[in-house]
């Protein structure tokens, strides 16, 4: 499975369940933007490693909303402590999906440690997370996404990037549109 396929599945789940969705730095954000650009999406353009942290802050602040963050293996390796903090807080409205393609995709597909044996599902479990799912197929991902609104999913994909254009929105436009959506009462949906 390609990363773009995984992102499409996650974006579909977020749109269908009206979840807020945090996209990860670099090409994954562009792939999300290309697949499904809706006001629920926050495109994190910088701050590598912090997609899971931004998602956690949103989930704790908006307990009545569903929140999903898309992360990557290189990014999680940069902010592994986040998995421990998520385990400690364990909000039941927060789903973290880590797309593990074993490579720093946006910078030329240099290998990450997960390509050499680091198992992020076991790391997430070892950090104390009780619901950790692991899949390498589109069908498997779809099934897990239907099953749960919380926990951590590790989805293994092939390295490589889709040919997608840059996001044209400015950071100000991204946050303004996203916050307008985040502040909408959940009952109005």
């Amino acid at each position: 499975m390609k990363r773009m396929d995984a992102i499409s599945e996650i974006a579909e789940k977020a749109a269908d369940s009206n979840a807020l969705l945090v996209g990860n730095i670099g090409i994954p954000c562009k792939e999300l933007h290309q697949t499904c650009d809706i006001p629920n999406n926050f495109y994190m353009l910088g701050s590598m490693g912090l997609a899971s942290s931004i998602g956690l802050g949103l989930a704790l602040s908006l307990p009545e909303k569903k929140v999903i963050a898309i992360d990557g293996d290189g990014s999680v390796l940069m902010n592994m402590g986040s998995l421990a903090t998520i385990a400690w807080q364990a909000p039941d409205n927060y789903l973290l999906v880590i797309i593990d393609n074993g490579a720093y995709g946006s910078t030329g597909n240099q290998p990450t440690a997960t390509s050499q044996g680091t198992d992020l599902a076991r790391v997430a479990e070892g950090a104390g997370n009780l619901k950790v799912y692991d899949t390498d197929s589109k069908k498997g991902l779809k099934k897990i996404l239907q099953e749960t609104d919380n926990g951590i999913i590790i989805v293994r994909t092939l390295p490589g990037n889709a040919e997608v254009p840059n996001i044209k929105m400015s950071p100000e436009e991204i946050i303004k549109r996203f916050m307008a959506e985040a502040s909408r009462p959940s009952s109005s949906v």
Partner: protein
Amino acid sequence: MSAQSVMTPSEAVYQGIKDACIDFIVSVPCANLKELIPMVDSDPDIIHVPVTREEEGVGICAGAYMGGKRPAMLMQNSGLGNSINALASLDILYGIPLLMIMSHRGVEGEPIVAQLPMGQLTAPLLETLDIPYFLPESKQDATDMIVTAMDDAFNRKSPVAVLLPIPFWRQA
């Protein structure tokens, strides 16, 4: 005798946090924050998230702001060094307010040599980042300046710091 004069330094900071309507706090401990962190943790009106690293805290606070909260980070100034990319490429890039309430080590009275380099670099780093900082001397200053600093953070839509050096924590 004013209420302030019977407060501990930690209570004066806590009062500022309450007066500033701060309702979301991430923390990384410092010896000088050991009284304050439990006060915040037991406050039912504050969501308190202990974090593993200050950079992570910047990310969580950014999410909290987008979720409608008024976030602050309790930290030691050494953690400023751990946060710079996030402060710049997340908070400053998007216009996200954050109050950093910082125990400023490596200044007058510092017993640990390893604190000295970041102690000296803290103010220049904040200046380079164009992050305003407040330097309360008295307990009353701390209470008042936390409120002003939080207003500043929201008006500027950027991080703002309050630096609390070793002598601040030692006053009666």
